[in-house]
């Protein structure tokens, strides 16, 4: 899986970090660190995280179309 976050758009709502804590981590209150190539086992969580982003800043490419 490939992930990129448009951090210019990100406002630190942390919805992704709640829903996929192994792929998205808050560093402090607002700064987001993300894993660019999370394990396929996290697919569901990562898709949940991307869908939940209030500013739709997360782009995910999965092996098969989602």
């Amino acid at each position, binding site marked *: 899986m490939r992930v990129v976050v448009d951090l210019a758009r990100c406002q630190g*709502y942390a*919805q992704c970090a*709640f*829903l996929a804590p192994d792929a998205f981590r*808050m560093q*402090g209150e607002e700064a987001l660190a993300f894993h660019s190539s999370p394990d396929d086992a996290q697919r569901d969580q990562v*898709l949940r995280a991307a869908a*939940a982003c*209030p500013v739709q800043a997360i782009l995910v490419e999965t092996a098969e179309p989602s």
Partner: protein
Amino acid sequence: MTVAQAPSTLQRILDYSSRADPYPLYAELRGRPVARQEDGGYVVSTYREISTLLHDPHLSSDAHSLEDPGPALAEFGDPPAFIGLDPPRHDRLRRMAMRHFGPPHSPTLIDDMRPDLTAIVTGLIENLAGRDQIDVVDDFAYPFPVTVICHLLGVPREDEPRFHRWVEAIVALLDFDPAKDPQERLREGVQARKDLRHYLAELLRSRRGRPPGDDLLSRLASDEGPDGRMTDEEIVSTANLLLIAGHETTVNLITNGVLTLLRHPEVLERLRREPEMIIRTVEELLRYEPPVHIIPWRAAYSDLTVAGVTIPKGSRITLMLASGNRDPAYFRDPDRFDPDRRDNRHLGFGSGIHLCFGAPLARLETQIALNGLVRHLKNPRLVADPPPYRQSAVLRGPRHLLVRQG
């Protein structure tokens, strides 16, 4: 008072007869994105203007910023929880509560709840098996989130009948119910708030003596983070807010979800084949039939200008979230329920610093609840469409949703 004045669009929306389908009236509202009302308040109904205001630091959530606060001061109680405060007090209290709910301090709490949530849903669904007719609200969509929020907060589930009455009266404070004398409603609501606070304060006191559990109430009581410790009053206000919000919103989202899926059988069919689609479906639900339709008031902290209209300091501003979600100037084909919609930046949870605190939990609950029902209901049909709605125009959802199966 003048006699026989035509009711405003907002008044017609608040009227119970519009509850089943307020959307045409929202469209009417959007003709004037920022509309001054007879009483001096402003109603904002278009997506960009709502979003702009929710990111405007001059928009206050503190009732004291209203020139004429009226019952607004009573709505959030005293002291208010963070929902009724501005920065920096809001930020500090929300941060302290967040320490025990999500990242960065408790990053896995919500994700770790998935097995428990699934187990509760499975239990509720087992009780539905073999019944010809169910009430989605009473049998499923209400008991599920209530069980979850009680567990999370550390409130005994068996007390639910007690606090349920109080919560109803408090929620009625948000409403503009013309059938009820506002003074009486206010009195009932304020008394209910007192009773609920008293109940939670007692609960908090009982936690003090015991070793801290992993529920939120205990953790708030014993925590000493970088921002210090919440006072007992602040803990009670916070618990109060989370209990009410956890009670009264997710039930709408789940019920609206079942109703919408039954109205769109092709989506329901797809969900049976592609369970993963529930993720986007719930986002689209949050846009299309959100659990909270209206932010009844915010206040102009100083003069502010939006869409060319200057709103004077102290004015009451009503934000029509559900109308923004159907704004054709922002969403293509907004009245279409389309789970494949891209870039769905809906206002279902609000936006800005007050974005729903429990949003991640509500999402997970709704995803699990709807997928569970979709899998287990056999040939479900609506008994009545539209179903009977709750009184509230703010927290809008069906009061009952009768479904036949088999």
